[in-house]
Structures are given as structure tokens and as C-alpha cells.
């Protein structure tokens, strides 16, 4: 049996609307993944520290407030600085079209907008998970 995919789900910034984060955390857990939900008001530093400590394969960020262009690059930079280049970042939330290409350019390929089926997110993570050695 292959080891479980490990996912840190985090709510960065000041926003407290956690419905999406909690529903997706539960869906990923029910799909057989190991999910660590950090809770609210996480700084990029806290999120990256959680990913390190939890040996995460993925970080899932839920951002509805419009702060994604500040938070996402910071998380990606901190991961690089800590040598965690293999941790993949995905985001869900309200992301204007004009920002999607910019997020793709820093390596964030999984960007899930409102109305995305949970199965689509589960499939994305499952198919992009790297084999653990």
C-alpha cells in the first residue's frame, strides 16, 4: 500500500470564512488523504513551518479576500528558502482571471475557482502527487 498523500489546508490572512477550507479538508480526508487543517489567520511563515513539520506533499490555501497576490508568492519563496521545493501549492477561492497566469508563473498550477467539483480537486492532487521515496 502506498503511503497516504499528506495535505496541509490553511486559511492565510485575516479572513475567517472557513466553509470552503473545511469542506475541502473533509473531502480530501474522506478520499483517503492525510489532512492537517491549520485553522485561521496563518501567516506564510506559519504555513510553511506546518508543511515542514507535517512532511506535507501539498499545501492547500483558501483565499477569498483578494490578498492572494501577496500571500501566494511569499509561501512559494519561503518553501524554496527552506528547501521544500517538492511541496506543491494549490489554492481555492476567488481569484480574478488576470491573476491566474501570474500564479501559474510562480509554479501554482492547481487554482480552483467557485463551483469546482470536489472530485476535480481530489483528482488533481492524486494525479500530481509525487512518489515518496
Amino acid at each position, binding site marked *: 500500500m502506498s503511503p497516504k498523500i499528506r495535505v496541509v489546508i490553511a486559511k492565510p490572512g485575516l479572513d475567517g*470564512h472557513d*466553509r470552503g477550507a473545511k469542506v475541502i479538508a473533509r473531502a480530501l480526508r474522506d478520499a483517503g488523504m492525510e489532512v492537517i487543517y491549520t485553522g*485561521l489567520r496563518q501567516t506564510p511563515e506559519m504555513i510553511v513551518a506546518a508543511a515542514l513539520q507535517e512532511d506535507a506533499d501539498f499545501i492547500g490555501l483558501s483565499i477569498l479576500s483578494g490578498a492572494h497576490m501577496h500571500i501566494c508568492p511569499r509561501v512559494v519563496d519561503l518553501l524554496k528558502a527552506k528547501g521544500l521545493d517538492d511541496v506543491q501549492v494549490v489554492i481555492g477561492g476567488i481569484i*480574478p482571471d488576470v491573476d491566474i497566469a501570474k500564479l501559474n508563473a510562480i509554479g501554482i498550477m492547481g487554482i480552483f475557482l467557485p463551483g469546482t467539483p470536489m472530485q476535480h480537486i481530489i483528482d488533481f492532487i492524486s494525479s500530481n502527487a509525487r512518489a515518496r521515496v
Partner: protein
Amino acid sequence: MKSVVDGADTRKARWERETLEPTLRKSAERKGPFTTISARPINRLYTSDDVAGIDYGTEVANPGEFPYVRGIHPTGYRGKLWTMRQFAGFGTPEETNQRYKDLIAAGGTGLSVAFDLPTLMGRDPDHPLSLGEVGKCGVSIVSLKDMERLFEGIPLDDPKITTSMTINSPASMIFAMYLVVAEQHGADLKKISGTIQNDILKEFIAQKEYIFPPRQSMRLITDVFAYCAKEVPKWNTISVSGYHIREAGSTSLQELAFTLRDGLEYVQYGVDAGLDVDDFAPRLSFFFNSHSDFFEEIAKYRAARKLWAEAMKSRFGAKNPRSWQLRFHTQTAGVSLTAQQPYNNVVRTALQALAAVLGGTNSLHTNSLDEALALPTRETATIALRTQQIIAHESGVTNVVDPLGGSYFIERLTRDMEEGALDYWDTIDRMGGMVEAIELGYPQKEIAESSYQFQQAVERREKIIVGVNEFVQTDEKPIEILYIDDSAAALQLERLADLKRSRDNDRVRRSLDALQAGAQGTENTMPLLIECVRAYATVGEMCDALREVWGEYEEVPMI
């Protein structure tokens, strides 16, 4: 009465046997499930036997009469239409001020301030957690100076346009700023009206914009009750909110039950603080969601009025009819709107708004078609307001009071909602009250469970969302949205630095010290906050002063 019931029962039985069954044998019904959006099963048909146990005279009553199922005003909307109050705020105070002027020019009849996340969380723009958030989800208000800019040219002594402010943890700080600006405009505080949301319980339950622990947060709220009873008697001191509970994924029944139970908790804390119930209860107001299940929502509003009236009488012995009368604002369900095929959202919003009106709302916000994508543009905000104006002036529903009263289905559903809410109240009462239930995580877990169940029903396509899991279109063109850049953040940061150089910093320090001393004792915090505001202390400084004394709340993350 009895013979009519028997007659109706016989008629229904005969109908089932002679009319329904042959039809079902020929063609079966759709697969269903026939449930509301909250998963409540709905019967095929409601007849007089479904309402046989409901006494019209005492349990429904005519409009304006206890227990107010049919409305608190005898004339419904023939007297006064609901207030068309569109929630708005973004960027700098000047940008939002312009949007308000646009809304008033377009026929809006009330203002509603949306603050940005740093303001809502009591953080100044230069705090690390404010990074990327200044002016994004609402307007940035840092000090009295920003409040002066926000209402520039909008006279606060004009009784025709009242303002509602969606602010909770720092509600008393923002309210203090409003009062000082109202004074500058020459207003008499004894005469002004308006609303602050000031509802911390639903923050712990659903929206999670809390700062201080529950009991200290309740103290700030009862301080506002006591202050306003004396100084600002026409102000709505709280807007007890189900909106956010529903948006977080609760059912319609949970929204009803938790919101009103929150209301009872505030009244209890007010009474415990030594206030006479009839001195402050008339100024409590409510705020509900209007979701997509038309009849369930209408029943919710009707049940809410009855539950509140009866509880105020029986639990608190309130004697003033105004303490019994539940007044509420409604906002259509943002969460029901889709990023896909966004023009469909105009139709969703119109139906939700109609449900709110048929349920007797006193005030209404209609969401814009771009809700799932961004804050509204000027154009989409105007269409949202026009939706209300069409219901008010073209549909004819405002000509008659409670047009659905007496519908077998509506009256039955109203009673079912009431009974379901009372069951929830029993559970919460057994826990010791709502503060205790929140500390146990009870409403939070109930809501998380409902939201997961709903999402799974959508995944299984038991619930159809047009354009999302059915009738999907792949060739959609993106619509133009309001993009908030970082210019407001830069300006607000610069202004904050200027403020700290130009104000009397000794006076700021003294006022904050006095606030801390008061918070440690039992002195009412409102006059202390007003002095901080006059000294141009910032929202972040006032909240930090209280953080030092009271600490901060942190919830245990759970999924």
C-alpha cells in the same frame, strides 16, 4: 371546527384514492428527493388538515398583533416600503463615499458600510497580518479622520437616510467614531438612528471575526446597550445575524434557531448587567439570509417573529410591545450565486428578494451578479438595487399585507420551523446558554456537518445548481469585474504615518490608559472609547489596548 377538519381529511383521503392513485399508476412522479434546499422533506400536498391544530386568532393573528406571524405593521408595505439598503465599501474612504452618493442618487434609501478585514479585525494597515488586505473587501477606516472622509457631504443629521455598519469586534470603536462625526454634522444624538451589527456570537459560530474572548466581548456589547439607552435612544444597538451562519453552511432551521437563541443570550446578558429589559430590547434588530428555497425562507421569517415575541414575553417578562416585535434586515444569499454564467445570478437574487419581501423584511440588500467574482461594479450594484425597485413598484406584492398568510403549506411550514427551533433551543439551554454552547463547539459542528452534507448532495447531483453541475456552458466569455489594486493600501499607510506625526500623542496615550483602566474594572467603555476617538487613536491602537487587558480568543481548528 372539528367537523370541517374531518371533512377535509375525508376529502384528502378520497382524493388520494380516487384521483391521485390512478394518476400515479399511469405516470410515476419524478425521482426526487422532494426536499427543501435544507434537506427538509416536503409533502406532495397540504390541505386544511395540515393546519387544523393551529389557532388563527392566538397563534397567527392579524398583522400588527401578537405574536406577529403576519408582520409587525398593520399596514404592511402599504404604509412604508422596506429600506433599500445596499452594502458597499472598498478602497479608500473617498472611493466609498462616492459609491454611497451614487447609490443615493439611484434611489437607495439607506446606507450600509462594508469595512475591510484589517478594520474588522482591529488591525492597523501597518500590521503584518494586514498585508494585501487593506481596502480589498471593504473600506479601510483607521481613525476618526477616515470616518470624516467617509461621510463627507452625507449629512448624518438627516433622518431620511440611515446608516448601518457591519462591524463586530471593534463595533464600539467604530460607533464612537460615527457619533463624533454626527456631532460634527450638528446632529442631536438623541434623535439620530442607524444600526451597528455588534453581534459577536455569530462571529464565534460562523464568520470568525472575533478578537477578545466571549465574555469580555459580551461586556462591550452590554456597555453599548446601556450607553445607548441613555444617550442615543433611537440607535439599533445590535443586528443579531443569521446571515453569516447560513453562508457558513447551516440549514434554514439552524439559521433561525441559532440566531434567535443568540438574541436571547444578549437579552440575558443585558438583564444580568442590571438593565431593564424594556429599556434596551426595543433597539435590538435582526439580520437574516434569503436563500434559494422560496417557501422555506418565507416560513422562516414568519416563524422568527412568533418565536421572538413569545420568548420575550415568557422568558423575560417584557411588557413593551416594541420589545416583542422582531424587526429585521435581509440579504440575499451570496453563497448561492455562481461564478459560472453570472447573469443567471440576477434571477436568483430576484427570487430571493421576493421571498424576503413576502416574509415581511424591514430592510433589504440584494447581491450583485458578480458576487462570486469580486466586489460589485457601479453597474452591477445598480441592477441589484433596480431588482428591489421592480419588486416594490411593479410586481403588485406590496399592495396586500402578508399575501401568503393562510396558505396551508406556508402556515404548516411556519409551524414546523418554529417547533424545530424550539428543539434546538432546548439543547442549547441544557448546555447552559449560547456562550457555553459555543465554547463546546456545538453550533460550529452542526453548521460544518450541514455544509458538508449539502456539498455532497451537489456532488451527487441530488441538488442541481444551474450552470455548475447541470446546464453547463463551456464557451463563456468573462465579464468585466472591479479589480481593487494596492493604491488604497499605499495611501492609508502614508496617512497613518502622517497621523502619528501630527496628532497629540500624549492625549492618545492618556485616553488609551484610561480605556485600559476602565476595561479592568466595570466602568462603561463607550465614553472612554469616545475620548480615544477624539484624540485620533486608531482602531488598531484601541483594540491593542483591550487585547493587553483581556487577551485574544483562539478557536481550536476542527473539520
